[in-house]
């Protein structure tokens, strides 16, 4: 993240909260490694979201108190977590049958690049000797909705592009992109901005995005933050 970008937009936890707002009561949701993991801590009060961890559990709860960690109760990032009442354990094959069979309402994932068509690149950087695919290809293909939750740019380079140049995780799979600057839907008509973070203008957003963005007229006329 460049210093310039830090001046505007959502903090990581605000971004996670913004994502959490859109998760509906009763949804089964998988959280990827990185910023998506933060979503677990900011689920709105009174809403029951059942979190899935691909190493084999449903009902992921908050981090344990210090000293309460159990090395046999970890998330997909191998970090200690807790299990909510109603949660359960199963094997990796059952866990991925759940993912690949289309049973999760949403997967919230990080990204290296995402194209204006919803192509996702998230498992291998061109300059690294090894890729690390984990469950990313399964989640993008299997989840009912794929939401990205990421910084808008990486070291000043836009992550939203016309065509991905990094190896693909899956083509045409992303439904919505949440970044520190905006909420953007991937639609048949291209990338449509749904919401701008505080202090972010449409022009600023477009300048930091390497693909054409649209914004609905109706939204602009409603005094949306886009007109700030």
């Amino acid at each position, binding site marked *: 993240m460049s210093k310039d970008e830090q001046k505007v937009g959502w903090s990581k936890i605000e971004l996670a909260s913004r994502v959490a707002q859109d998760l509906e009561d*009763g949804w089964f949701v998988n959280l990827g490694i990185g910023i998506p993991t933060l979503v677990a801590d900011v689920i709105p009060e009174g809403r029951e979201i059942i979190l899935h961890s691909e190493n084999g559990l*449903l*009902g992921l709860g908050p981090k344990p108190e210090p000293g309460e960690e159990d090395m046999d109760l970890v998330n997909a990032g191998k970090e200690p977590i807790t299990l909510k009442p*109603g*949660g359960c354990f*199963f094997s990796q094959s059952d866990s991925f*049958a759940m993912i690949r*069979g289309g049973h999760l309402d949403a997967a919230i994932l990080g990204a290296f690049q995402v194209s204006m068509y919803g192509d996702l690149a998230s498992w291998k950087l061109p300059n690294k000797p090894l890729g690390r695919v984990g469950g990313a290809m399964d989640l993008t293909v299997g989840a009912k909705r794929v939401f990205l939750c990421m910084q808008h740019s990486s070291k000043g380079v836009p992550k939203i592009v016309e065509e991905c140049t990094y190896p693909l995780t899956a083509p045409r799979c992303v439904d919505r992109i949440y970044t520190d600057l905006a909420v953007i839907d991937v639609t048949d008509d291209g990338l449509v901005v749904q919401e701008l973070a505080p202090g972010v203008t449409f022009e600023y957003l477009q300048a930091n995005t390497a693909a054409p963005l649209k914004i609905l007229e109706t939204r602009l006329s409603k005094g949306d933050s886009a007109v700030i």
Partner: protein
Amino acid sequence: MIQKKYENTAKAIADIHDGATLLVGGFGGSGLPSHLIAALVEQGAKNLTVVSNNIGAVSDGVAALISNNQVKKIICSFPVGPHADDLIARLQNGTIELEIAPQGTLAERIRAGGAGVPAFYTPTAAHTELGEGKETRMFNGRLHVLEHAIIGDFAFIKGHKADRWGNLVYNKTQRNFNPVMATAAKITIAEVDEIVEVGELDPENIATPSVYVHRLIKLEPQREGRVLVNE
């Protein structure tokens, strides 16, 4: 707040439409969702494709739907038993279609449906009448047939206990086809003996995770008892 419990079986199955594909758990009478079947007889949806292992073993199973002329096609492994007469009659007059599948192939096709696998190869039924017309391929020097996933619009399953989230545990061999069918339908409806508080079921021991169960019906043993007495 998650709430999957329905007031009664009629409401839980009200939207089953003509032409729907329905998976029905149970092995003979064990684990058979007989109250959901009875409600569907009452509801009357027609031209159903029904996937169930046994047809005719018990009167309150899929046989009841066949006798009530609600079934267009049956996919099963064991279409015989004391209550198979109506099936035989309808096969003879051509008003029902029967697809016999080896029991393991049936289970695996349903699992594939739940697991996002559209098709897989198996040596079961190769070189037999049940493999006829199927695409074949050699693996490791052995002939295999290509089998396709089964997905239901609805599944009827029977469990022992559920919680509000929809987690299920079963009683002994009551499991049979119930856990796998639960994974393979757009809407899975479970009838259970008991609904307990969230957190009461042992998390190591939940055979059907909540994600697979969409609607719950708690059986009322007393009322059922009265019905039986009235018979």
